């Protein structure tokens, strides 16, 4: 049974304690302002504040804003009010304070450890390195080095600037989804009565000029998932620059990295200081260049982030070679689930550019029927060349 916190004698009173509690919540990533402190105090006057169960429920209703907050709240409440005055430090410090939108998913860490940190799972589709003919590189040797490598060495600001341009053009090419809302226009299908009446006043109530309403086109959002497992090392530079550019060009886009686990890097890449952002990303992306669990990561994505970030107005861009160490059916069902949210899925596979490439990797083959576009891309130039394809999508 937990004890109630005993505050020091010089404590200035309940209002200050509640303010301290709000500060404690804020430090733990809940976004609360001064208005919430006031509201919390007011709320406590309407319940029996001496009963800690009631106080907890009242503060929970006021201070939490979403499901995650609500789940976290009880532990935070206990650490402040119920822990004999010791304010518990959170075991998992955030990568950057105040950026509560950066969720690094701790839940999959178990899997990560199981795969053996840094073990070079060279995803070679069971074909073996012996088949290599010297043309293409399936680098598996460098992996251990790279897992400790700073991503800042990989991405250069010039590349990002160039990628930004490519990303902007891609975004423009995808811009064809009709809105269901209407706006006034010269030509359109239905009449805009409000404007017509207003204008008819100047012609004695005679509606001479008819103004119409149309459905404007609204932009599609791009959600990019980039594979940074060992087999993708050689392409990482291009793709990371592209993601950096995309995040800068389009404020509604969203980016993730995955290898054996999935990491959201949107906020890091939007950092005003590009290099600092990439530095932040390197912190989050430990395990970079290791094995790949595409199926598992996509599955996790389809069950978590996709629910809020993927809808009928989204294009999901997957940058991966499709070499997966997990079961193929999990892979395919994850892609299918994302597809069911109404999104278009584009898979850019760097290997597809190779002569005689066949999607033999089991998972890749299983996912193929659910893709809207399966294309090759190794360089920024290739990405830019996709534009006409995207217009047709």
């Amino acid at each position, binding site marked *: 049974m937990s004890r109630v916190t005993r505050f020091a004698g010089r404590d200035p009173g309940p209002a200050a304690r509640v303010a301290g509690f709000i500060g404690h919540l804020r430090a733990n990533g809940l976004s609360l302002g001064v208005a919430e402190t006031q*509201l919390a105090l007011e709320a406590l006057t309407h319940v029996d504040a001496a009963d800690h169960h009631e106080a907890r*429920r009242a503060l929970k209703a006021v201070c939490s804003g979403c499901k995650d907050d609500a789940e976290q709240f009880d532990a935070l409440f206990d650490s402040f009010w119920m822990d004999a005055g010791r304010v518990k430090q959170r075991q998992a410090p955030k990568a950057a304070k105040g950026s509560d939108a950066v969720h690094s998913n701790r839940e999959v860490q178990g899997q990560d450890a199981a795969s053996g940190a840094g073990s070079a799972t060279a995803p070679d589709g069971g074909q073996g390195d012996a088949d290599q003919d010297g043309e293409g590189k399936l680098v598996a040797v460098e992996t251990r080095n790279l897992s400790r490598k700073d991503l800042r060495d990989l991405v250069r600001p010039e590349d990002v600037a160039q990628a930004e341009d490519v990303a902007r053009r891609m975004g423009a090419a995808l811009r064809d989804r009709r809105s269901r809302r209407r706006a006034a226009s010269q030509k359109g299908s239905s009449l805009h009565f409000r404007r017509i009446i207003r204008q008819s006043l100047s012609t004695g*109530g005679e509606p001479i000029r008819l103004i119409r309403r149309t459905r404007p086109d609204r932009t599609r959002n791009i959600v990019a998932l980039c594979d940074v497992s060992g087999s993708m090392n050689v392409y990482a530079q291009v793709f990371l620059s592209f993601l950096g550019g995309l995040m800068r060009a389009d404020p509604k886009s969203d980016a993730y990295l995955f290898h054996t686990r999935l990491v959201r890097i949107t906020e890091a890449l939007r950092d005003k200081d590009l290099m600092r952002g990439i530095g932040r990303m390197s912190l989050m992306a430990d395990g970079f260049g290791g094995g790949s669990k595409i199926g598992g990561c996509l599955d996790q994505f389809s069950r978590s982030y996709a629910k809020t970030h993927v809808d009928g107005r989204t294009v999901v861009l997957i940058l991966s070679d499709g070499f997966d160490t997990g079961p193929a059916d999990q892979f395919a069902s994850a892609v299918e689930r994302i597809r069911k949210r109404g999104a278009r899925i584009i898979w850019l596979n760097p290997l597809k550019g190779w002569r005689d490439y066949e999607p033999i990797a089991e998972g890749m083959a299983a996912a193929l029927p659910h893709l809207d576009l399966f294309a090759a891309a190794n360089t920024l130039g290739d990405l830019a060349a996709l534009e006409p394809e995207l217009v047709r999508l």
Partner: protein
Amino acid sequence: MSWIDLQKAMAAEAYIASDDLAVALHLAITLGRPILLEGAAGVGKTEVAKVLAATQSARLIRLQCYEGLDAAQAIYEWNYQRQLLSIRAAAEDGQTGREIEDRIFSEEFLLERPLLAAIRQPDPPVLLIDEIDRADEEFEAYLLEVLSDFQVTVPELGTIRATTKPIVVLTANGTRDLSDALRRRCLYTHIGYPSMEAELSILHARCPGVEARLARQIVGFVQALRGEELEKVPGVAEMLDFAAALMGLGIADLTSDPTLLHATLKTLLKTQEDQAGITHEVTARLAGRAA
């Protein structure tokens, strides 16, 4: 009226509210703040507003959100036909443009939509804004003015202030992420699937005719089913349908007729994959465990 009284009043209307929910609703009423309810489909979010209206003997005004909902359908609209007629009539009487304008943009020509209606009631109503996450982001912005200041601005007419503050209940089930601005203006409660005991009391409150033994079996079965890998997890509403179906078919024991039981699963499983996934064997196993 304390939150416990509210909880009891809601129970009298056959709604079993958790302590968290009851406190949050009590605060929403006393502080005059909107409350945002989130949770999976079928856990009784919409029902909260209906029951709340019944306990407060207030009118329920409902705004169902959908993609493309705009101010004309949610807040107000001018009555264009009347305006047109009025302009023609006025022109024949030789009125000036200024007079006509004042006349046709007066309250007489304003059509109330749910949000405007809600702030102009003589007694505070319960305003249910259902599935807010289906509406577009632009609509959320309209809503902010109504929810924070309880006022509506009509460009031609000026600002209309609330005569009474409605009790606002918003529901969402995660179709998209709501803006922080909206979340900050609301109290928040997440409604999860009820515990075994809570669900039993819900079943007793809604279907008083069901026998205690069968009730335990039904709730146990549905709770076990929620643990299975399903696309659409059955909610409380589905559980009540299931109970009604069993009672209609005169089943007194879940294990007595496995084929018939499997047939009634149509009330719980709402996608083809789920129906294919829960085979006769799984049904029998779950029923055996619940019995």
